[in-house]
């Protein structure tokens, strides 16, 4: 493999890892606060649709991002209402949100655009455009560094850069601020937070809404950055892969980055090598494309060592009795 091929694969790794990263960090906020969220998928999907729809109608991709985030946060609020206020089962609420998003997006898309559940193709200002970083052109011909800078690091949409910046930001918020301390505490022992005079409900809603916001970015990126428009079920299980990455990362932001890059890489490899020969045996294309999902199963089956989730995760807070 020459440098160019490697760069191409890594380049597409970054792009494919971005939606996973947003969703994974979204899940991290929610689950660190003790609210399990298998509705990442649904929130991404609804954000993808509303982003594409708003971008298509206004011609402005920022309006799309805003609409996507709003839609995702609306679903997050429903999840919060069900699992925090009404102390319902968080898994069931998440499943319901996924179903709701699948159905709702296609239904509204058909009603608004009559294109079989799609939005029109997005062009120009209705999509996030690649950004060329300073000096990329100038440095392009410098050996090794030039291509790495030009092909790999430069030339992504703003959301890709935001996604990667979100990792240190999340780490900082979680481990260096008062809000982060309280958020981690409420996921471990809400009783301690309550008796310390801090509102458990308020903290958990805060976390769930941040989760909604980040899922909004993930979804918007799918339909207005990675692709040019919404198609049915375009999240394609990424919400669940992000969940697997979150477990793989043991609910830690930097590890989440590593996990998402790994999944992104597998995805990129699957796209690049339609078939591959190892020791004379040709692996079919389906196998390559299934790689990220296979890894998900392996991770969820617990082959990665012990992942200890936040101790109060999944349990609504009820004072004794």
């Amino acid at each position: 493999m020459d440098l160019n091929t490697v760069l191409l694969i890594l380049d597409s790794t970054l792009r494919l890892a971005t939606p996973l990263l947003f969703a994974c960090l979204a899940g991290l906020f929610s689950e660190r606060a003790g609210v399990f969220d298998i509705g990442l998928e649904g929130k991404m999907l609804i954000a993808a649709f509303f982003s594409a729809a708003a971008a298509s109608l206004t011609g402005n991709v920022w309006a799309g991002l805003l609409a996507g985030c709003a839609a995702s946060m609306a679903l997050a609020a429903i999840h919060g209402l069900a699992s925090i206020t009404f102390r319902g089962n968080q898994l069931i609420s998440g499943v319901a949100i996924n179903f709701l998003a699948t159905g709702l997006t296609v239904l509204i898309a058909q009603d608004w655009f009559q294109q079989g559940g799609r939005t029109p193709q997005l062009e120009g200002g209705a999509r996030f455009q690649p950004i060329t970083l300073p000096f990329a052109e100038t440095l392009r011909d410098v050996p090794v560094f030039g291509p790495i800078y030009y092909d790999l690091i430069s030339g992504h949409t703003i959301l890709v850069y935001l996604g990667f910046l979100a990792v240190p930001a999340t780490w900082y918020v979680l481990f260096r601020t008062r809000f982060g301390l309280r958020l981690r505490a409420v996921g471990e022992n809400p009783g301690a937070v309550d008796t310390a005079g801090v509102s458990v409900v308020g903290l958990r809603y805060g976390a769930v809404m941040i989760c909604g916001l980040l899922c909004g970015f993930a979804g918007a990126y799918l339909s207005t950055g990675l692709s040019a428009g919404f198609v049915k079920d375009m999240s394609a299980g990424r919400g669940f892969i992000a969940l697997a990455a979150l477990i793989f990362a043991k609910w830690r932001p930097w590890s989440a980055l590593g996990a998402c890059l790994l999944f992104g890489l597998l995805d990129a490899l699957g796209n690049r090598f339609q078939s591959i020969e190892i020791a004379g045996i040709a692996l079919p294309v389906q196998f390559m494309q299934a790689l990220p999902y296979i890894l998900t199963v392996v991770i969820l089956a617990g082959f990665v060592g012990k992942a200890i989730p936040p101790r109060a995760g999944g349990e609504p807070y009820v004072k004794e009795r």
Partner: protein
Amino acid sequence: MSEAPAIELRRISKAFGPVQANKDISLKVMPGTIHGIIGENGAGKSTLMSILYGFYKADSGEILVGGRETPIPDSQAAIKAGIGMVFQHFKLVENFSVLENVVLGAEEGAFLRPTLAKARKHLTELAREYEMNVDPDAKIEDLSVGHQQRVEILKALYREANILILDEPTGVLTPAEADHLFRILRGLKAEGKTIILITHKLREIMEITDTVSVMRRGEMTDTVKTSETSPQDLAERMVGRKVLLRVDKTPAQPKETVLEVRNLGVTDSQGVQRLKGIDLQVRAGEILGIAGVAGNGQSELLDVLGGIRAATGEVLLKGRPLSLSGPGSDARARRRAGITHVPEDRHRLGLILDFKAWENTGFGYQDLPKYCSGLMMDNQALREDTDAKMGRFDVRPHDPNLAAKNFSGGNQQKIVLAREIEADPDLLLIGQPTRGVDIGAIEFIHQRIVELRDEGKAILLVSVELDEIMSLSDRIAVMFDGRIMGERLPGETDETELGLLMAGMEGRAA
């Protein structure tokens, strides 16, 4: 007495569904005193204090702090009013450091670094002032319960609490740790702080309080000066009738060895060694009491002997070896061999709470011929048998069709006891026989255990209540960190020596 009370409660009432936990309670606590609140389990002590701390909301009534009416809708308000509380089950975040737990909710700004630096200094000062050494960077889960409790107290002091409520603080402590706690409390009192101590242990009340209030069935029945009362008097006020505080028993007449345990070892699923070579014997007609702070391997010992955990080593029952892992080592095999088990946690292992009393009486014995007719169960026979058992064990209410959860703790325990004792075992394993059981029922349960001994049965008793071990056992073995630290005879030892053994220190040469 012109001074305003530090705390005054006026006609506080609180109901959980149909259960009236607090009925019209009024109470005055004078500043700079240690005020004890005593009562049986379920008398409403913890509920009352949780209301004072804003954890629960009272249905009616008012709270005055320092003479001024102060509504306390949540813990935030309680903290502001200078009230701190150490709950029975600590409210600490286990994988946080001591420092992080102390500042949680009392941070000084949005960013942690300056807050933590300041708190570290303040915490060190507090720790020195009150002789409560804890490493601010230690993780809570690595600390002993005694140290965890200090963190809770420091948390309250850090918030500048003037009134400190402690809910059953000594339940998890060794006697030495309890003594240290009392020294700390006396120090706090000398500083002018007011302390409310909830307990069901008469000895503690007599030792440390200035005033004591007695609660019974949700009502505050008396408030007296500690110097003007006695343990016997308080016990009667708590129960509402005369009670026997000591167990009445004759010296044991031990016969042949029933249980012999040699080099028993248990390693749990995380690879931690829970039992490290246990050797012990129990003879017919004697009670061997296992003392120790909770979590030092007593539960694992009961589990192994009861057939719900695998182990290595050798266990002989009347000379015949029992298998310790694989088939033939389950609870059913043990029961057939002649071992019955009253588990420590009756809610988890002893009963199915939603099932009726008669169904619970059948568990483990459902295949006995007397409960069966052909392939079917003879529920009528089981129901009648339960009815008779309930009579003999004075279970109230006497209703086999009532669900187990609707009985009080003491009566639930009697149901389990009736099932296991009347199975006529050679060896009875009994863990925490009186945990969560009211004084009246304790008396009855103790008598039944002694009677069983006098019938010539072997009894292995595990309890964290040293008083119970001292008064019931014919021999006492002390466990620490998965080992037997030593054996003593109850007449030839005292709480101090046992306490040292429980803390892992060799007492006198064994």
